[in-house]
C-alpha cells in the first residue's frame, strides 16, 4: 500500500510539474479556504473581505471560501475532502481537530497541495504535527486566558469588582474552538476562588436570553459573563440590565467580556457596555495564508515559524483606533449594520 501511495504521489507530482512547465509564467492559481466559520457568524465577513482584497492584488489567483453552517467535525472533514478532490493549488484550513484532519491533510500534502493552517493550529509538538507550511492565527485557549487575566488586572486596579462567579456562555456546545476559549478563561480564574461554569445558551436569541436569565437567577453570585461570540454580548448585557445587575463597566454588578474585533464588540466597549474583547487579526487570517500559499507556489518560500496574529486585547483605550481600522475594511455602512447595540 505504501508503495502504491508513493507511486500515486510521484505521478501526481510529475503531472503538476509538467503542466507547470508548460504554462510559462502567467500561471493561474486557485486557493481554497475550508473554514469552520459559517454564514451564521459575522466573522466570515473578515475572511471573505480579505480574500477579495487578495484577488484584487493578484488577478491571476482565484480564491474560494467554503464552510459549514452549523459546525461539526464530520461535516468539516467532508468539505475538506471534497475541496481536496478539486485539486486546488493550495488549501487554508483551521486544524479544529488534529486527529480527524491528519489523514486527509497528509494525503493532500503528499499529493503536492500546499496547506496553511489558520485560526486553529495543530497543538502538538513540532515533530508530531501535521506537516503544513505554516500557521497563521491566534490561539483560542490564549484568547480566553488573556481576557481573563486582563479582567483580573482591572479588578486589581479597582475598576471592576473582583470575580465571585464566572459564566462562559457558549452558543454551540459541540464546538471545540469555543470550548478552548472557555477553558482559557477557566484557567485564568483558577485561584481567585470564583465559581466557574460553562453555559450552553444555544444560538437562538430568545432561547439564549431565557437560558442566561435562568442561570443568573439561579446563580446570583455570578458577576462575570464571558460570551464566546461577539454577537451574543448584547443579549447578555440586555438580560443583566433587565435584572438590574448593572452590566456596564463600573465597580458594581456584572461585568461582560467578549471576543472578536467585530463592530458589535468594539462599539460595546466604546459605549462602556463591555469590558474588553480580543482581536485574533481575522482579516490577516484570511489574507496572510493566501499570500504564503502564493509565495510558496511561485517562489518556493516556506516560513520558518508560525505567524501569530493575536490575541490582542481590545479595551476602552484602543477601541477608537480599532473602530477606525474596522470601518476602513468593511466601509461605514456595513460597520453600522453590524453594530447591533
Amino acid at each position: 500500500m505504501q508503495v502504491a501511495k508513493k507511486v500515486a504521489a510521484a505521478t501526481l507530482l510529475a503531472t503538476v510539474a509538467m503542466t507547470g512547465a508548460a504554462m510559462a509564467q502567467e500561471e493561474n492559481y486557485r486557493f481554497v479556504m475550508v473554514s469552520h466559520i459559517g454564514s451564521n457568524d459575522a466573522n466570515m465577513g473578515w475572511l471573505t473581505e480579505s480574500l477579495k482584497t487578495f484577488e484584487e492584488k493578484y488577478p491571476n489567483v482565484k480564491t474560494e471560501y467554503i464552510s459549514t453552517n452549523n459546525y461539526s467535525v464530520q461535516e468539516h472533514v467532508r468539505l475538506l475532502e471534497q475541496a481536496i478532490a478539486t485539486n486546488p493549488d493550495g488549501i487554508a484550513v483551521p486544524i479544529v481537530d488534529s486527529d480527524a484532519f491528519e489523514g486527509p491533510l497528509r494525503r493532500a500534502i503528499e499529493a503536492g497541495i500546499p496547506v496553511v493552517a489558520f485560526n486553529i493550529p495543530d497543538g502538538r509538538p513540532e515533530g508530531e504535527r501535521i506537516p503544513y507550511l505554516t500557521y497563521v492565527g491566534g490561539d483560542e485557549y490564549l484568547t480566553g486566558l488573556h481576557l481573563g487575566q486582563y479582567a483580573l488586572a482591572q479588578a486589581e486596579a479597582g475598576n471592576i469588582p473582583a470575580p465571585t462567579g464566572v459564566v462562559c456562555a457558549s452558543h454551540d456546545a459541540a464546538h471545540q474552538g469555543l470550548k478552548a476559549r472557555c477553558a482559557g478563561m477557566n484557567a485564568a480564574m483558577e485561584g481567585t476562588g470564583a465559581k466557574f461554569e460553562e453555559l450552553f445558551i444555544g444560538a437562538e436569541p430568545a432561547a439564549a436570553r431565557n437560558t442566561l436569565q435562568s442561570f443568573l437567577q439561579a446563580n446570583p453570585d455570578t458577576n462575570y459573563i464571558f460570551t464566546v461570540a461577539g454577537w451574543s454580548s448584547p443579549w447578555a448585557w440586555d438580560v443583566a440590565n433587565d435584572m438590574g445587575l448593572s452590566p456596564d463597566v463600573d465597580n458594581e454588578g456584572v461585568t461582560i467580556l467578549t471576543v472578536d474585533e467585530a463592530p458589535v464588540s468594539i462599539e460595546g466597549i466604546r459605549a462602556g457596555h463591555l469590558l474588553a474583547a480580543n482581536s485574533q487579526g481575522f482579516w490577516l487570517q484570511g489574507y496572510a495564508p493566501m499570500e504564503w500559499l502564493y509565495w510558496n507556489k511561485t517562489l518556493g518560500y516556506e516560513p520558518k515559524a508560525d505567524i501569530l496574529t493575536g490575541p490582542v486585547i481590545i479595551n476602552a483605550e484602543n477601541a477608537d483606533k480599532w473602530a477606525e481600522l474596522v470601518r476602513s475594511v468593511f466601509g461605514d455602512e456595513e460597520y453600522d449594520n453590524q453594530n447591533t447595540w
Partner: protein
Amino acid sequence: MTFLRQLAKSAGFGSVVGVGVMLIAFTLIDFSGWWTARTLSNVIHFTSILGLIAIGQALVIISKEIDLSVGSVYGLAGIAFITLEPSLGVPGSMAAALAIAALCGLAQGILVVWGGLPSMIVTLGGLFTFRGVIYVWTGGSVRNFSTDAREHWLTRLFGGEFLGFENALLWMLLMLAVLSVVLKLTRFGNHLLATGGSAESAESRGVRIDRVKIATFVICSLMAGFAGIITLADRPQTHVTIGDLLELEAISAAVIGGCLLSGGRGSLIGAVLGAFIVTSFRYELIALGAPSSWFITFVGIVLIVAVIFNQKLARWAGHNV
C-alpha cells in the same frame, strides 16, 4: 370519577395535570427560587413566544400534517421585519414580514396538497431553504432597529409592557383566544377537525380539504412569523441564528399539550401549557445546576412520557386512539 372522565376527554387535560404535577414538584424542590416574580416573568415571557409558535404547530398537527419549518419561518419574518424597516417604515415592514411568512406557509401547503408530497419532506426543505434565505439576505449579521423605530408606537404595541405584563403574553393570550374560537366555534374549525379526523369523510361531505390544509399551513407560518415580530419588537438585537432548533421545542410543546399525530384531536391551550412545561424545565434544570446540554435530553424524556400519559388518559376517557 365520571366527572374526571368527562374532563379527561378534552385533549388538553393531560397538560393541565402535567403543569400541576410540575408546579408541585418545583415548589417542593426549589420553593424560593421558583416562586419569585422574576423567575415567573422570565419563564412566562419565553412561554409566550414559544406558545405562539406551538399554537400554529398544533393546528397543523390537528390537520394530520407536521411543520418542521416554523423555526426558520420565525427567523425569516423577524429578520425581514428588522431589515426592511429603514425602507418601509415600521408598519410597512411588519406587514411585509407577515406577508413573507404567509407566503412560506402557502408555498409549503400547496406543495403538500397539490404536489402530493409528505409534509415532513416539504417542510424539511422549507427548514433549510428559509434559513438559507436568511443567510443570503443578511450576509451573516443582522442590523439593529434605529432609536426612532424602537420608539414607534407599533413597536411598543408588540414589544414593551402593559400593566406589568410583557405585551408578548397579552398577544399570545389574544391569539390563543381567537384561534380557539376559530377551531371550536366556526365552520373552518369544524372542517379542520374533520379533515384531521377523517379526510375521506370530510371530503365526502363537501369539505374542501385541500383548501383547509393550505389555510392551516398559512396560519401556522403566520403565527411563527408573528412570534418573530413580537420577539424583535421587544428585543431588537438579534442574529441570523434566530429561530434555530425552535421547531423541536414547538413540536414538543404541541405534543405535550395533547395534540395527537393521528390528527383530529388537540388543544391549543394544551400547546401553550406544553410550551410552559418545556420552558419551566429549562429554568429548573439550570437552577438545579445540571449542565445545560441536559436540557434537550430532558425535553426528550418529557416528550415521551407526556405522549404516553396523554394517550393512556385519552383511552381511559373512552377515546379510540
